[in-house]
Structure formats: C-alpha cells, structure tokens
C-alpha cells in the first residue's frame, strides 16, 4: 500500500501497464516531454518509456482519436488524452463512427482496443468550456464503454482494466478529484472491473446513486445523516455505459427510496436512464418518487463565482434532498 492521490494513481496505473506491455502507447496535447500533461497525469512517462511511446500530438482532437483507433487496429493499446472533456467535441465523429463501431461493423474482424482519457467536471473556475460533463454525448452508444473512477484505488485499477480491455473505453477523470483525494492504493498489479457499479456504503433508509465528485458529497452527507439516524446506501455507478443494471436495481429495491445525483444538467443526463431502468424494473418496490439532484438546465456553469456556485451540486444540496427523501 502507498498513499496516493487520484492523479498519482492514474499515472501509476498507466506506468505499470506501459512497463508490462510495450504495445501500450500514450499521446495527446502536452502529454509528452517534460510537461507531462496540463494536469501532470503523464508526468515522467516520456522519460521512462521514450518519446515514441509517450508523445505530443498537434492540436487536433479528431486526429488524436483516429490515430488511436488506427493503432488499435494493428495490435496496439493506445491511450489518447483529450486535454479537457470539453475538447472531445471535435473528435465525436471519430470516436462514435470509427472506434465505437469498428468491432460491430466487421463482426469482430477488426477491433479498436483504445482508451480515451479526459478530465471533466467543474468547481475549478473553468467556466464554460473547462468544466463540462460531456458523458451524455457519448452515452447510449453500444460498442463503446464509458467509465469514471471516484477514488484513488479504483482510479489505478480501472485505468489498468481499461487499457487491457478489448473494447474502446472513454475514461473520465474528475479534475477536482485529482488532488483532493489521497488514499491507500495497493502497489501490486490489481485491476478493478469496468463493468460494475459498487455499493460504497451500506444503508437501509435511502439509496443514493452517483459518480465522480458528487459521490464525495453523498458520502459526507451520509456520514452526517447517520448521526440523525438516517442510514443511506450509496452506490458508485463507475461504469457509466453500459450500466450495471443489476447492482443499481438491487440497491434501489433495498430501500425503496432513490436519490440520483449528478453534476451534469438535470434533464438528459445519465441519471435519466438510471431512473428509467429502475422505474421499469423496480416500480413496485418504490416508496417515493425517484428524485434527482443535478445541475440546472442551463448550458454550463459560468466563470463568475456566484454562477459557478449556483450551478454546482454541493454537500448541502445533496444532504437536504437525502433528508427530505428519508422523511417522505
């Protein structure tokens, strides 16, 4: 065990995989050289594995995605970094039309075992185009996986699993978690599955489902509410697409009161589908309407502090909703 931040855990996971398999390569804007990424996730990798396996690309996201897929076609395990999740948008065509459909459209003859990494999420004064949750754009595209870890242990295990996966995986990293969380991370070669949600807290009164940064709020709120006698079951979605329906439905049934929490806009987010699944499969186990705490339905959080604060889900908003639901 070693104490690590979320960021260090991802760096470590990539490093281990690059050492294990020379087919693993990583690239993107500012990823190579001494800079090692604008957040530093790839720091040291160019020095360790050479400028061929960890390198800078020109400022072209479509090419980053296509380059990754092309490498995947001929046996590589490429990791393409998008500097911010907001900047995946120029690459949507490559990600969805090519990487996401290569296996299916050739019935498995050609495959694209690639990982697309992207820091997402707000709370860093990034304003309009450095704060977005873009997972909804890629959600519901069979053939593609979307995952995001919510703690350092999962971060290392899931990036390793994503690299080894034969499927294309979008790997979202919440940029506020990068340095916020420090935790014990095993030093051995473990992986954490990328198709499973996880119950991170057991409880019998209400079920809270979320991922990424908001899970911190839910966990903190759950601890506080426990003192008021409210016991929350908290589930980390982790595998955003495809969803681990079984775990989610079971957790919903357990308490019959479900709160879905996301940093994304309320309507159209991943939580809509989770609500749909629960209301399709567990309706008669529900004792209260399925509630959502989410960002408002405005395009993005503003830069000015009052706008960022108003947009973001925080511990208080989550706790209020949890208490209300418990009392329902």
């Amino acid at each position, binding site marked *: 065990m070693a104490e690590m931040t979320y960021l260090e855990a991802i760096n470590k996971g990539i490093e281990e995989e690059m050492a294990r398999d020379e087919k693993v*390569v990583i690239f993107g804007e500012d990823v190579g050289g001494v800079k090692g990424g604008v957040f530093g996730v790839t720091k040291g990798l160019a020095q360790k594995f050479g400028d*061929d*396996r960890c390198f800078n*690309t*020109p400022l*072209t996201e*479509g*090419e980053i*995605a*296509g*380059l*990754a*897929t*092309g*490498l*995947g*076609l*001929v*046996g*590589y395990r*490429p990791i393409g970094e998008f500097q911010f999740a907001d900047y995946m948008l120029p690459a949507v*065509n*490559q990600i969805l*039309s*090519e990487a996401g*459909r*290569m*296996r*299916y*459209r*050739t*019935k*498995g*003859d*050609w*495959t694209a*075992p690639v990982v697309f990494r992207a820091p997402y999420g707000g709370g860093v004064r990034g304003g309009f185009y450095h704060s977005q949750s873009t997972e909804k754009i890629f959600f519901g595209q*069979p*053939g593609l*996986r979307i995952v995001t870890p919510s703690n350092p242990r999962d971060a290392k295990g899931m990036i390793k699993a994503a690299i080894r*996966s*034969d*499927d294309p995986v979008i790997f979202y990293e919440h940029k506020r978690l990068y340095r916020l969380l420090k935790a014990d991370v095993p030093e051995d070669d473990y992986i954490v599955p990328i198709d499973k949600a996880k119950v991170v807290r057991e409880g019998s009164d209400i079920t809270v489902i979320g991922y990424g940064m908001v899970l911190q709020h839910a966990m903190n709120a759950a601890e506080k509410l426990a003192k008021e006698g409210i016991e929350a079951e908290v589930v980390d979605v982790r595998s955003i697409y*495809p969803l681990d329906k079984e775990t989610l439905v079971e957790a919903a049934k357990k308490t019959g009161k479900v709160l879905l929490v996301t940093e994304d806009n309320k309507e159209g987010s991943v939580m809509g589908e989770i609500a749909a699944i629960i209301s399709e499969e567990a309706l008669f186990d529900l004792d209260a309407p399925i509630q959502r705490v989410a960002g408002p339905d405005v395009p993005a959080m503003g830069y000015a502090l009052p706008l960022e604060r108003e947009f973001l889900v925080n511990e208080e908003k989550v706790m209020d909703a949890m208490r209300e639901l418990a009392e329902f």
Partner: protein
Amino acid sequence: MKKLKSSGLSKEEIIQAYQAILRGRRLDERLWQLTRIGKTSFNISGQGAEVAQVAMALAFEPEKDYFLPYYRDMTACLVWGMTPKDIILGSFGKEDDPSSHGRQMPNHYGSKEHNIVSHSSTVSTQMPLATGVAYAAQLENKDYVALTTTGEGSANQGEVQEAMNFAGVKKLPVIFVVENNDYAISVGSKEQYANKKMSERAAGYGFSGETVDGSDFTETYLAFVKAVKDARAGKGPALIEMMVSRLTSHSADDDHTIYRSKEELDTLKEKDPLLAFEKQLIDEGYMTKEEMQAMDKELKAEINKATDDAEAMLDPTPESLYEQVYAE
C-alpha cells in the same frame, strides 16, 4: 500517354494489369445489373477509375502493406486480394461477406485477411486511421506502408487536414490519395474547392504532392512506385491526386442525367480510360483484340460463377444482430 514499357513492368505483368482492370469493369457492371433487376438494393461503383486503381495498387505489396479504401475502390481491392465472390457477398449482404458480414451497405470494403481495413460511409474517417496504422510501422521499425483513398469532395473534410498534418510531422509511411472525378454526387469540383489541384495541399503539410492522369497507366504507376519507395525508406508521406472519370451516376440512388448534359456524358464515354488503355495495349503490341475478347469471356464466366456462388450463401440470422457488440 506514357509508354507502358517505361513502367518497367514485364509484358506478362502488363497483361495481368489489364486483366485486373477488365475484371473490375465487368464485376462493376454485374453489380449494377444485380441492383437493376432487384436482387440487390444498392450499388456505388468505380467505372472510369479502374486503370488508375490498378496502377496504384500494383505499386504496393498487399501481403504487408495496409489499404484503407473508400467505396469506389473495388478494383483496387481485387488487386489487394479480395475475390469477385467476396465483393458480391457484400452486395447481397451475406453472412460470409468479408467486409462486414452483411452489416454495412454494399461497396464498403474490408478484409482482415488481406490487410484491407473496414471503412465507413462517413467520408474520409479512414484518413486519421491510416496515420495510426503507419505510426505502428514506425514504432515497430517495419517497412510497411499504409495507403488510403478518398474523393475530391470528401478530401475537404477537416479530418483529412488533421491526418495529413500529423503524417507530415512524424514523416509517416502513409500515402494519401484523392480520386478526383470532378463530382461529389451532383456538386462539381468548382463548388468544392478553389485551388487548381488537390495535390497542392501537400505542400501545406511539408510533404510532396503530385497530380497524375489516372487514365495514364504508366504515369500513375510510376508516381506510386516512387511514393512507396520513399515511404518505405522513411522519407515520409505523399499525396497523390488521380484524375479519373465517374462514368455512372453517383450511386444507384442518383440519376446524373439531371445535372450532367448529354454532351458531357457522351464525351465521358468516348474518353473511357478502359478504351484508351485497350487501344494502347494494341498500339504498343501487348495484346490483340482477339486476346482481349478471349480474356473478357473468361472473366465473364468467372463473374457468373462468383455471382451464383455468392447468391447461394446464407443471410445473417436475425439473432446475429446481437453479436460482437463488445468483446466476448
């Protein structure tokens, strides 16, 4: 027109080239026929580009080089190793179709066995992929080359710029080809771009570009021989524009008589590169008319058999719709 002899190919090789060209034409005619009589629902073809495609493909080594084609490249795919039956299986959408097992529309070629990477309908997405394939050659220190093609309209897609730019930076062994037939469906090339030649764009990415008359077999072949040699030697990419004809409507869903005059169509037919090549073969003493007719007869028999064989194969089962969404 350059003499065939100056191609450096033997008489036998020239005759094989003609056979490949004629096979392409006859098979293409068959595909249109199948659509006309309602046995298939779609066709898009390369009539008018066969001479250019064979001259192009012959400059490569299909056992080690990769081909990332577009939908007009049937004749080139045949040279690369696919059989008429493979092609017709795709037109019928049969389970054994090596391109997509009936999943994509006809004429979306691919073959894992023959290093032909599956392409999609979304134009030019293959170009970034080709840079990935070529970067792998560099990583592995191998001397294979990636060939990728598109049309003069599709070449304006931003992804093409991004791919060429990256290829220039890394001096990748990739050859970009624009098959310029003066039309993108109904849109003439004057409405597509204002530069004189598409090959001029290469200079903007730091590598060489050349425009060849695609009905001139020798000129086309030699341009590719040089480009392939340079690419194998680590001298970087090339962009080759081949001026070709589109003798048919854009596809079975289009009627070009609406936007092309009778005069234009008559001239096109007169200038059919196949006829010019046949004349050259006779003039330069490679073949007689009778030998050509005999070859034609053989090819028609070959294609008849391929059609029957393909038609007798199985359709994909409805249940197979669910296969190969993710790695199994």
